[in-house]
């Protein structure tokens, strides 16, 4: 097997001087093209884990090796690495003072110094991909939740990341809008994008995931192919968890 894209070693996040252990020693390798779905009860540390991958959450200790460099090292240029790690948030976090096009092109123009016309052409292609070309000149407040999230995905993709991180991307959506966002994510997975997805959508995990991970009390309690994970769970906490969520 080729070198992993992201190698996480002994990742820990402690609060109150170690009294609260949000992450308690996570080890995982994420390979190119994988769709890793992270599930777990609320407060288990799954979001903290995802947010640690691009250091939005500062880990207490541990290594995150991305592109062959430990991005948690003191002298690592985290801003450079973050350009390669797209992130999609539960609450979209679109920039309300910018149009859809402005949202998507801001980072490519400012950070990659791509000329505006070129960045906008690229943005239109991404809008085409998320089926929202007609919203280019709209402001975020004029969009539905599902549309906002699709724009947020396009915005992250505009930096041409090598991995996409999704932090409960459908949790804040009305039920009828969940499908349109998941469809985009499925397309993305099919195109070969490496993805790490924290979600409660077990259907998505089953259908699109190449690997499913169960986190509880800040530790990975089980990881397996979706089929084995759902049909043959071994950890008692996972069995209990799966019996409680609708699949």
């Amino acid at each position, binding site marked *: 097997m080729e070198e992993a894209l992201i190698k996480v070693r002994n990742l820990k996040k402690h609060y109150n001087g170690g009294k609260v252990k949000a992450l308690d020693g996570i080890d995982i390798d994420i390979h190119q093209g994988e769709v890793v779905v992270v599930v777990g009860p609320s407060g288990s540390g799954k979001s903290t884990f995802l947010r640690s991958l*691009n250091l*939005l959450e*500062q880990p207490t200790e541990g290594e995150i090796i991305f592109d062959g460099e430990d991005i948690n090292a*003191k002298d690592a240029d985290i*801003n*450079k690495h*973050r*350009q390669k*790690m*797209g*992130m999609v*948030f539960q*609450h979209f*976090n*679109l*920039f*309300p*003072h910018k149009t859809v096009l402005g949202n998507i092109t*801001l*980072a490519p123009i*400012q*950070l990659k110094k791509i000329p505006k016309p070129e960045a906008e052409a690229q943005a239109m292609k991404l809008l085409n991909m998320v089926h929202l070309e007609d919203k280019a000149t709209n*402001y975020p*407040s*004029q969009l539905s939740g599902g549309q906002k999230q699709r724009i947020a995905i396009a*915005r*992250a993709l505009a*930096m041409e990341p090598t991995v996409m991180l999704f932090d409960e991307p459908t949790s804040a959506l009305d039920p009828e809008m969940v499908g349109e966002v998941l469809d985009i994510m499925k397309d993305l997975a099919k195109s070969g994008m490496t993805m790490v997805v924290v979600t409660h959508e077990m259907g998505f995990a089953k259908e699109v995931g190449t690997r499913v991970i169960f986190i509880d009390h800040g530790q990975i309690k089980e990881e397996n192919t979706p089929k084995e994970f759902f049909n043959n769970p071994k950890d008692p906490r996972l069995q209990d968890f799966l019996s409680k969520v609708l699949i």
Partner: protein
Amino acid sequence: MNWFDKFCNDFTLNFIEGDRWKWILEGLGNTIIITIFALIIGVLLGIIIAAVRSTYDKNGADMKKRGGPAYVFLKIGNTLCNLYLTVVRGTPSVVQLLIMYFIILVNVTNGVFVAIIAFGLNSAAYVAEIFRGGIMSIDEGQFEAGRSLGFNYLQTMFHIILPQAIKVILPSLFNEFITLIKETAVAGYVGVMDLTKAGDKIRGRTFSAFMPLIAVALIYLGIVVLLTQLLKQLEKRLRKSER
């Protein structure tokens, strides 16, 4: 003598005789000069204080990890700013003015200059909190979205946070301007003839309190009402651009 004739006599006595209306004009000029220059000092210094404090709040943990002298400076700066805010906001502005005139700038005889410095330093504390409040009012998710795209702290501030925060900041800043105009009314304590002092001086000469003091009050009121109308227009426009 009916009330109209009495009014006219009073008016003549207080403003026309001895060209006393010129005192009012001079006082008004000083009030405006002190207010505008104090506000300029307040905004410039306030932005610096707000920048130090919000950087410490939002980016301190990041800089601590990286270590080096930058974090130490930031920490010291933050402590100094907090001390400054506590002292300035915890003491009356008249006392600050007197300290400035009789202790710190004791060699400066120009009262207007001393008043500008004193009110400017006072205003800076309030302006700083207005800016910091504006920055802090923007959802943390905006900040994270910027950082996740690869923007550094300053880039995130300038491209994403400040353009949004300015809509919260501008009306409050304008309000501070209005407050400041009224605050400068104590400039007479250090021998400055501002608008209030001018009215009081006339009262002392003519022994007629009603006319000069009410006139002074009406001038303040007129300025404040005018500026408040402008503020409302400004807020309306900002709301419109929110969509």
